[in-house]
């Protein structure tokens, strides 16, 4: 027992036989029991449901579906890169003192956040209707329909939409960094841009990453909308299959498994990214990663991972 004053020390020494009885968490036991019962019931009903599990297993590794999740992941990455670049640029533009620059950024966010992604995708896909040809006169010219393939249209559409959202996330990150950091950077002779790049943005990343991680996951799922303009991602491929064999739930379960797998991978990536930008954020050492803990358990205390 922790004793901080003299009299207590004396009293504790007089009665060493006092026993500590831990608090009983009755509510927790009841709650856990209810949850377990519910899970068992769910499990039983799914095992009795008319799901043809062998079909699920069979289609889990079908090449078109794997290709489909691949397309979804690639589309996510391309759209997120476009979205991040646009987001950072438009966030900095919105914080600019120049009214034209900040006004343009505001307009961009207003338009692309204010209309449905689905609508934007359809517009990009049909852009050839109003601009049949694209190019810089004398240097390069092409037919819009050749350049704006479904995948390109989907990348641009999703990316531009994402940029409008990411912009606000990045702006909140920049605003969360103390003004004194910019001043200190300027005091050692940095320009505003150098201060932004070396001092402000790296610190803003801590605030930016969790919501952007959220948006990456959101984007992975939004890519399913791209099927509307003819991109062959996993969900549209699955639909093509079940229109033929009528195994609707089985194929949707396969899609869910693949989506969950991809999201899990992304979450691991986010975990390590957050760790990287947490440098110096605490006076204590960062806790070991699950991977490091695993290595610790198996006794291979390899310094390379610490």
């Amino acid at each position, binding site marked *: 027992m922790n004793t901080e004053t003299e009299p207590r020390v004396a009293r504790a020494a007089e009665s060493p036989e006092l026993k500590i009885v831990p608090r009983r968490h009755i509510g927790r036991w009841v709650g856990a029991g209810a949850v377990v019962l519910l899970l068992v019931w769910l499990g039983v009903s799914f095992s009795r449901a008319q799901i043809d599990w062998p079909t699920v297993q069979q289609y889990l590794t079908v090449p078109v579906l794997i290709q489909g999740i691949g397309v979804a992941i690639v589309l996510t990455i391309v759209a997120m890169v476009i979205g991040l670049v646009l987001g950072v640029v438009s966030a900095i533009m919105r914080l600019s003192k120049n009214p034209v620059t900040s006004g343009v950024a505001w307009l961009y966010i207003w338009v692309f956040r204010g209309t449905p992604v689905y609508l934007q995708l359809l517009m990009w896909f049909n852009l050839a209707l109003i601009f049949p040809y694209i190019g810089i006169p004398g240097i390069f010219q092409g037919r819009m329909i050749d350049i704006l393939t479904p995948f390109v249209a989907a990348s641009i559409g999703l990316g531009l939409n994402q940029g409008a959202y990411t912009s606000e996330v990045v702006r909140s990150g920049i605003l969360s960094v103390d003004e004194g950091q910019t001043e200190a950077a300027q005091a050692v002779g*940095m320009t505003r841009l150098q201060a932004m790049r*070396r001092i402000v943005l790296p610190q803003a990343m801590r605030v930016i990453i969790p919501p952007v991680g959220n948006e990456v996951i959101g984007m992975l799922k939004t890519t399913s909308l791209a099927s509307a303009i003819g991109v062959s991602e996993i969900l549209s491929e699955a639909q093509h299959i079940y229109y033929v064999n009528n195994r609707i739930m089985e194929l949707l379960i396969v899609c869910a498994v693949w989506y969950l797998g991809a999201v899990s991978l992304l979450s691991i990536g986010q975990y390590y990214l957050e760790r990287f930008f947490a440098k110096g*954020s605490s*006076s204590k050492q960062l806790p070991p990663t699950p991977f490091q803990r695993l290595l610790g358990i198996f006794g291979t205390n390899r310094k390379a991972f610490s």
Partner: protein
Amino acid sequence: MSPVAASTTPTGTALVRAENVHKSFGPNEVLKGINLEVNAGEVVCLLGASGSGKSTFLRCINHLETVSNGRIWVGGNVVGYRQVGNSLHELSDKEAARQRQHIGMVFQRFNLFPHMTVLENIIEGPVLVKKERATEAKRHASELLARVGLAGRENSYPRQLSGGQQQRVAIARALAMKPELILFDEPTSALDPELVGEVLDVMKDLARSGLTMIVVTHEIGFAKEVADRVAFMHNGQIVEIGPPAEVLGNPQHERTKAFLSRVL
């Protein structure tokens, strides 16, 4: 730095010269005509109650604030402007940054870069701005750390240090740019009382080494011991200036007397 025409060069050998400096934030006039000359190697302490404009004036000297009226010269150059013939051209961001390289600044709240180690904090300016070689900058940084009594703390992060240690790192960071002038903006005001001494000791050492320093402070003892001159500010003006023995020992102005009777 660019040469300046003789007609506007400040007279004498003053490193810093402020002439009729005014500064307003909206309708609120914070500085109402400051005149001050600081010679190379001199230590000047600015005293005064909160809101008297000390910090604002200090921030004008390295162009963190733009003066509304009047002019400040540092090392013969007009702060924030480039002289071409008879006209003053406002500096671009890049040019202003170049001008600030020669003026160090130490902040009340340290403002160390928390995502960088102590060493990275110190070499960031020299390497990024002055394009010094990293090995050379690191060697110099370690020397400076030893000078402020923090040898061996190169790889700590700022949050792992006490306030006094952080402020000493901030001083080392300012010194790493080899400035001709360092501005101190209430460097000990955010520190626990028992940590004030270690920072003041470092500053005393710098003063003895002949560095030009302008120090906004509430530490009367430090001003008395170290300053060549003490300036007392009230309501946006310097009301009394002179050697510490005179201003602190035998104040003439009512405001100075009232202020000293409160803090001593």
